[in-house]
């Protein structure tokens, strides 16, 4: 009843091209931003901010990055965690080695460093396609982590290879409390997500989708394949790099190269598959799902079965449930949670009528 677009007319191109053409959506979205940007940091406790909300935002950013590459440009990548590692270690070194480096600039430079590496590993995509490319991106995953471990310069000759992120300071204000870190993450992610949303709606985004649907055909009608594919790799790695830097600075604080392993890459891939391939909203939904599911299982399995099973059994059961749920989701809704949301919205528009 409330969700109607009757009476809302578009009288200019600017209005026609809005992200949310329906007024109710705009109000809802503004409320959502207000809730997560202002109310949540005021009300939520430390555990929620530190262990759930901040990582969800950071992983959403990484998932947006992978979604741009895989969902929009159609290049399957299994190396996103490595690009996060590049971002994290680049930010660390920029702040360490350049005096008075502003944090946000370091963040941007970290993204650019990751983008550079991404373009390098994106070069094979011009010749290799499909699963061959996916396996080829594994080369990036293993090689980058090896470089970061092998050359102690990257971790400032720390004996264990673990680096501790410096204090985040912007305009003299130190972001130490979980609330401050959350707000900073939220702001960065919101800006970059908006940029991504607009990018995929632009000519660039359409070029990516054309390449995804069939690269030969796209080339025939005049898209420059090399430019389009490498741009996708660059932008995607930029997002992953910034996510990696945030991961180090606003989430866990101490990072080591091995933390950015294949498992993390798979996790990010799961996020976009569960959330919805080729959807910015999907990246957020998927990240929330993948971060929350293990926590939920952690609490639910002992509650349901008691401690009688033992820790080993419980952790195996969690593995099975996690894997099973992923298969279940793929079977029930292969287009992800974003598609479910879309269906819900369409139903809502017509409610209470069926058609």
């Amino acid at each position, binding site marked *: 009843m409330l969700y109607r677009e009757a009476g809302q007319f578009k009288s200019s191109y600017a209005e026609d091209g809005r992200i949310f053409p329906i007024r109710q959506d705009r109000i809802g979205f503004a409320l959502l931003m207000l809730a997560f940007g202002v109310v949540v940091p005021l009300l939520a406790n430390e555990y929620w901010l530190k262990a759930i909300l901040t990582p969800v935002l950071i992983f959403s950013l990484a998932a947006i990055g992978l979604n741009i590459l*895989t969902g929009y440009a159609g290049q*399957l990548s299994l190396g996103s965690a490595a690009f996060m590692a590049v971002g994290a270690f680049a930010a660390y070194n920029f702040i360490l080695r350049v005096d008075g480096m502003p944090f946000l600039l370091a963040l941007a430079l970290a993204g650019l460093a990751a983008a550079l590496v991404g373009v390098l590993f994106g070069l*094979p995509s011009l*010749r*290799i*396609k*499909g*699963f*061959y490319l*996916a*396996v*080829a991106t*594994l*080369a990036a995953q*293993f*090689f980058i982590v*090896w470089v970061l*471990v*092998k050359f102690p310069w990257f971790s400032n000759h720390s004996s264990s290879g673990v680096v501790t992120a410096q204090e985040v300071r912007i305009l003299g204000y130190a972001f130490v409390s979980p609330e401050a870190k959350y707000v900073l993450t939220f702001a960065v992610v919101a800006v970059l997500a908006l940029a991504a949303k607009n990018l995929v709606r632009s000519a660039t985004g359409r070029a990516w989708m054309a390449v995804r649907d*069939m*690269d*030969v*055909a796209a080339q*025939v009608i005049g898209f420059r394949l090399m430019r389009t594919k490498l741009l996708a790799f660059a932008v995607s790695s930029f997002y992953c790099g910034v996510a990696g830097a945030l991961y180090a600075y606003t989430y866990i604080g101490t990072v080591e190269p091995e933390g950015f392993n*294949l498992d993390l890459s*798979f996790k990010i*891939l*799961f996020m976009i*598959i569960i959330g919805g*391939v080729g959807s910015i909203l999907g990246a957020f939904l998927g990240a929330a799902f993948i971060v929350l599911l293990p926590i939920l299982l952690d609490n639910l399995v002992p509650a349901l079965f008691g401690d009688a099973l033992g820790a*080993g*059994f419980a952790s*195996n*059961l*969690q*593995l*099975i449930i*996690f*894997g*099973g*749920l*992923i*298969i279940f989701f*793929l*079977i029930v809704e*292969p287009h992800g949670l974003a598609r479910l949301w879309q269906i819900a919205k369409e139903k809502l528009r017509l409610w209470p009528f069926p058609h």
Partner: protein
Amino acid sequence: MQFFIEVLIGGLLSGVMYALVALGFVLIYKASGVFNFAQGAMVFFAALSFVGFQEVLPARFGMEAGSAAVFWLSFLLAFATMVVLGIATERIVLRPLVNQPPITLFMATIGLTYVVEGLAQMAWGANVRGLDLGIVDEPIAWLMDDYGIGVSKFDLFAAGAAASLVALLAALFQYTKVGRALRAVADDHQAALSIGIPLQTIWRVVWAVAGFVALVAGMIWGARNGVQFALTFTALKALPVLILGGFTSVPGAIVGGLIIGASEKLAEVYVGPLVGGGIEGWFPYMLALAFLLVRPEGLFGERHIDRV
């Protein structure tokens, strides 16, 4: 020179072990177009089941421990377990996902990996177990004495097992009715369906055969390094082999395995010290990547032709 040959032979023989795992991937990819990431977990599950049955049979049913009967019965039971797993996978995972894009199927097999890993450890426990095939891992004496080249008996046995497995598979594909159907399905699903080949039965057969390959690979790897969770990583070792040889080619898996195994060991020995070692982890991938730039479909893969 002797050292070089020794490293080369050692590499080639370890390449055979990679090829064994890669074979399982190729079988499933050929017949159903599924890139089965769970192959590594299946290797783990198969080896663990085999060792598990070997422990359970003497303990519960009073059979003589270490006897041939226990060995073969365990082998059959483990094989049966893999067949059941394969059929269940086909029924529960693949059938509802027919006609989905390959990436969805790939993701489903990653989910399957978690399930199989969890199941395996839940059923048999997470302890590292030894596996004895009765072949000692020592150099062949006369080669060592006469030429000074150390070639492990065990590696030769593994190579022999791989060779006979490939021969067996080739015979199955070439000379049996099921094999003909398998090839038809690999060629074109719809055409195969339309002339009355039961697609689902074929898929079940393929998964069962892949389970068998996983069992053999798991036993050999397990005898080498112990049956432990690290077996699941054999899948990662097999991936560069796969792209080097081509996803759709059985000989490709073998040749790719040999190339990867040999070059990996040679690189570790001769290039490794220059850059600080530990390059075995990524070298195969870089090699495969460089190779793909020249031949994007692998050595023996089907050439991909785009039609607009």
